[in-house]
């Protein structure tokens, strides 16, 4: 009898890239629902546009590079990049802004570097930063979270769609009546006006331990993140290190000068901290590879985020911190090669 040849190890592997990415998307579902609850249906359009553009860009680039496009699209990595980018966009974003971000992320940050596995920068964050710099107005117009009495009116489904398509709010809505700053932005502005943190925190944007609305979205993101840890989609090193990288300096400054520095709880539960820790910094392609390297990488992201928030020009710094640490990855990898079995300690 003749047999087919196989290669060792012969056992069936339990995981594949598609499944890892699919679990990541599932893990984002609770946070997406919370986001819709607090900020309206805008994120659905953002996601739809980003996913569509990202997939198109991926197929086009793979075809141009002469690679099998459909097979690689099915790995879902482009979808994940698009969804993460959509999560970082403001709830009301014109379609061309979202599309530009998604296209840049896939074409420049991913495919031009050689496609999946070869991109030195996190594509979603590269796309986000490009948008932040190119569309500063559109990227900083936020809605206040539901449950605050800041606005009488909130854009409904139709108004949201209108804005996404045209970039104009339908009358009688205007940014003056519906808009608001993000809490991190607010803190930055107010502290700049020499107010104390306590004064700032008594404002309506602030919730029980972080920013109103944001704190709950962050909680749901964290639930998704913990589920991913349980499913071994990600490992604990990067999320823990990112959070410690923020909590340690925040605690130190909060203890030393509580009047001028926001509390560590506020830093963790506002902005993109938790999303960054669990979903963005953990992108394996652009992260460090060894356990020790990942601790350093994550801690660096946390520290840089705090520094940018406290003293930088932008209210949130996760995206910049991730990109800066992406640049440091080769160096980190070089200095954190583990000691192999049987070598001197």
């Amino acid at each position: 009898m003749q047999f087919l040849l196989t290669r060792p190890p012969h056992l069936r592997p339990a995981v594949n890239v598609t499944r890892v990415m699919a679990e990541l998307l599932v893990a984002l579902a609770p946070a997406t629902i919370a986001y819709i609850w607090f900020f309206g249906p805008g994120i659905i359009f953002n996601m739809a546009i980003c996913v569509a553009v990202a997939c198109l860009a991926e197929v086009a680039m793979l075809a141009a590079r002469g690679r099998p496009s459909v097979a690689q699209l099915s790995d879902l990595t482009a979808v994940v990049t698009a969804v993460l980018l959509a999560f970082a966009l403001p709830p009301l974003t014109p379609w061309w802004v979202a599309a530009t971000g998604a296209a840049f992320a896939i074409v420049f940050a991913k495919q031009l570097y050689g496609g999946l596995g070869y991109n030195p920068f996190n594509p979603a964050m590269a796309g986000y930063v490009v948008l932040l710099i190119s569309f500063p107005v559109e990227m900083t117009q936020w809605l206040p979270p539901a449950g605050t009495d800041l606005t009488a009116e909130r854009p409904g489904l139709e108004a949201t769609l209108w804005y996404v398509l045209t970039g104009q709010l339908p009358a009688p809505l205007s940014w003056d009546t519906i808009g608001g700053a993000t809490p991190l932005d607010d803190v930055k502005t107010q502290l700049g006006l020499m107010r104390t943190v306590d004064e700032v925190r008594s404002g309506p944007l602030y919730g029980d331990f972080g920013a109103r609305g944001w704190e709950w979205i962050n909680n749901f993101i964290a639930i998704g993140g913990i589920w991913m840890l349980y499913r071994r989609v990600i490992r604990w090193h990067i999320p823990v290190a990112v959070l410690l990288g923020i909590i340690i300096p925040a605690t130190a400054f909060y203890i030393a000068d509580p009047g001028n520095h926001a509390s560590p709880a506020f830093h963790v539960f506002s902005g993109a901290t938790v999303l960054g820790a669990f979903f963005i910094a953990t992108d394996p392609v652009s992260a460090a590879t060894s356990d020790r390297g990942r601790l350093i990488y994550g801690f660096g992201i946390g520290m840089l985020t705090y520094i940018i928030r406290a003293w930088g020009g932008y209210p949130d710094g996760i995206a910049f911190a991730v990109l800066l640490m992406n640049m440091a990855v080769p160096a980190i990898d070089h200095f954190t090669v583990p000691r192999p079995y049987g070598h001197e300690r």
Partner: protein
Amino acid sequence: MAGQSRLWHFHGGLELPAHKSGSTTEPLTAAPVPGVLIHPLSQHIGSPSEAIVAPGDYVKKGQPVASATGYIGSPVHAASSGTVIDVGPQPVPHPSGLSADCVVIETDGRDDPYVGYDPLINYRTLNAPALRARVRECGIVGLGGAAFPTSVKLNVGTGLKSLILNGAECEPFISCDDMLMRYRAEQIVSGAQIMLHVLEIRHCCIAIEEDKPESHQSLLKALSAAGDERIEVVRVPALYPEGGERQLIQVLTGKEVPVGGIPADIGYLCQNVGTAVAVARAVLRGEPLISRIVTVTGSGVAQPRNLEVRLGTPISHVIDACGGYTEAARYLVMGGGMMGFPLQGDQLPVIKATNCLLVASEEDIRPRSPAMPCIRCGDCATACPAQLLPQQLYWHTQSEEFDRVEDLNIYACIECGCCDLVCPSHIPLTQNFRYAKAQIWSQKRERERSDVARNRFEARNARIAAEKSERARRLAEKTRMLQTGAADPAAKKALIDEVMKRVGDKKDSSAEESGKE
């Protein structure tokens, strides 16, 4: 380690589905003797043995048919009585699929035993070299899979701390050691006692994985019957690749075998439990190694079970003894689900290293989907028991930067396949590392060869240059003599005579040569 109270961990490793229950429900029995036995002369690293029989010779069961050559070598014995019908190349079970020299015996069904090795019941009165010689002449090799000659391994000098008997059979599908421990525990204990005597040490530890309670009970019973306090049984958690000797030593002692070294460097010697039984039989009964326990399993075989198989038995014969193939049989693997190698045909013989025959269906085996690009997830590094960075090794192997691969300590890789199995991109990492090792090895060999060639080339050039300058010098000398020699007619005459004579010689010899042609 005495009074084992604490266990350590090795880095990484995987909890794998054991797939062992299928082959352990049936009792251990002997497979029938086949009509033809094929004994390959090369069954392990080191020098192949040399056939000492010729076609037409009658051999008895247990009679040596090939003798060991070189220190790392081992003789081969006929597994049953019969007539040698061929000594020459036959396909052998090897990843390469190549043929190699074999002794082929047509059995006569009489199983006539060869009387050549006396039982050494009083082995305690013998010294270590004598016992090692017995182990060597009986062809005993490590039965865990590598088939390294046991007599060589036992020759590590004195001063060891402990002998470790490896019953941590961690690889999926293989259960031959489990069955051996259940059925032949007292022989394992005897083998351990003999090896303790050879090594002149006073401690032996038999390591069994926690998922083998029957083996554990059976060994405890045999130990209490023997009443030997030097030997203890230690249960270790079931985690692949714990049965690797370096990993097992780390779990039992917390120490690592230095890279490039052997366990004896840190005071330990590791032997498979099956080897202990083979040693006991060789010494106490004078039986050479002519059979071993083989696990026949997988959904491609009708009655999975463990069989005591004569070495040299064709695989098809072993499968027949297990009820034949099922419809689903697609793949044949010699060894377990992680480190075994695939075979194309079943006319190949069972050899000393054959611990398992896995006949797998399409569903048992990894799908042959093409590999995706590496996403640097690092799961491979987490799983690696040698604490390497498989993805970086892979990266550099792909770009053929083998010096970098070497810097990243590829030689610490034990090819266990953990990284491969956890890779979400299904990259054949283990195969890549084998290839990288082979490339590094052959580059080194090429370098050595080219250094030799360079030296010889330069030596030749120097020689030619020296000859040339010598000729030029002689010519100049003669010219000078001819000019200055005019003053001395006698000397001149002598010189002319000499030249004439030489010319004459040359003429003769060339005439001879042309006459020949």
